[in-house]
């Protein structure tokens, strides 16, 4: 099933650029800022945000990535993946860490990411930037910076496609099948 993208390539580009500006604005500069990807959807996005910020600020914030698998609360339901992604973090003590993910949904990944971050140090503050907020939160979590709010049904599948991973930029909502 194909559906028209909610964001096309230009839309993704503009949204990423705006997010980059919002991140720098809320921190009043690049000083003390660290961008951390939540492994899975955030990795390519973090590099783009850092590229953008470098362009208009002349300084690139340090970046890192976080595999949150072992901190998830739903491992008993999902199973453990037999492979894990590397976690690589710059010094986060006393920094403002912006967690970056492509889609914000139940909030469970973000909770796991905050727990994982605590194993590495104590940031001055942790913020959350997402390209898409699709609703249906199951925890008291919200994003500080949102690219686009997209109303969805619980069963819909929201896909963020990025050039680096998927060969093109787009955000697509694939309608979920009706529950049997």
């Amino acid at each position, binding site marked *: *099933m194909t559906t028209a993208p909610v964001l096309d390539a230009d839309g993704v580009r503009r949204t990423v650029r705006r997010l980059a500006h919002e991140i720098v604005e809320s921190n009043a500069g690049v000083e003390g800022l660290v961008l951390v990807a939540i492994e899975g959807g955030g990795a390519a996005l973090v590099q783009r945000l850092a590229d953008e910020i470098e362009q208009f600020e002349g300084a690139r914030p340090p970046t890192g990535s976080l595999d949150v698998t072992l901190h998830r609360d*739903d491992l*008993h339901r999902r199973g*453990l993946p037999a492979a894990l992604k590397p*976690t690589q973090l710059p010094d986060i003590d006393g920094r403002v860490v912006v967690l970056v993910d492509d889609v914000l949904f139940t909030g469970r990944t*973000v909770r796991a990411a905050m727990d994982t971050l605590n*194993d590495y140090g104590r940031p001055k503050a942790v913020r959350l930037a997402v390209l898409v907020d699709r609703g249906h939160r199951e925890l008291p979590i919200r994003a500080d910076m949102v690219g686009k709010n997209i109303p969805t049904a619980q069963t819909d599948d929201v896909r963020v496609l990025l050039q680096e991973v998927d060969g093109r930029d787009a955000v697509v909502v694939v*309608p979920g099948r009706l529950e049997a």
Partner: protein
Amino acid sequence: MTTETRPPHPPTTTSRQPAWEHHDVLDLDDFSVAEIETVLNLADRMREILDRRIARVPALRGYTVVNLFFEPSTRTRASFELAGKVLGADVLSLTANTSSVVKGESLIDTVRTLRAMRTDAIVMRHSMGGAPYLAAAHTDASIINAGDGAHAHPTQALLDLYTMRSHFGDLHGKRVVMVGDISHSRVARSDMWGLAAMGAEVVLCGPPTLLPRGLRASDRPAHAESALPAVTIETNIDHAIEGADVVMALRLQSERQQGGLLPSLHEYARLYQVTEERLAKAHPGYLLMHPGPKNEGTEIATDVASGDNSTIEEQVTNGVAVRMALLYLLSGRTEAPGEPSSEVRA
């Protein structure tokens, strides 16, 4: 593209699923290369967790591991205990002299009793070769062989492979020389399987009385030919070490001297001790390994044991990471191959 709800990145497909079929870890002879790589790759991630400021994750919460040791051990037992705890599992350690074994309880009863208490994995060391196989046949808890007699020590072999791989990247064609008491060494046996699988050249060196029979091609019965990995036997240590990428000294079990296998420890040290001078013939950048516990001054000279090429302490750290990887895989909580998770990522 299917319309199922599943994580957008990375795509979950069968081909990406790392290989893992084991319910127990008894020896490396039934591990495929892909399975060994699954363990080593995962150990990389586990190693990273060990270096965190707070090295503890809740992944195996509610998973219970029992260390059941019928023989003394420091590093293996501590290593498994820490591995389980870092992953959030509950770990308890039993030793034979404080367990009901002294009251005559059989191995099978002990294992069944532990399983009745909902133990998920039993890490077992026993003086009898094959004991973990017997245990595995009588319980559905996962059995991990932490050394059985002179037979096998698969987790040591995996940590040895991991250590070598982290230095060389690829083990193909690497010359790995094991020196010492090969016949009584379960480490050597499991290492042989693992090294052969990974494409390394295995050289065994020691006095003829401490080399197992049946390893030379000419000694083998015809039907055993394919059942043993190909190794080279060399009784002269200087020849063996020439061009070696890895020199692994094995503990000389001094009790062997009483058995008439060695004239004297002094003579053994003179002929087979791994020394700075002998290592000069090894390949530059060689690794000096020892599974521990070591008798410095017997099979290995003190200065080389703590020298620049020594990986002895690194092996100990890697051991925790490798055992974490094994417990994680054995927990059976990993996704079944080809079966995407039923829930969408948050």
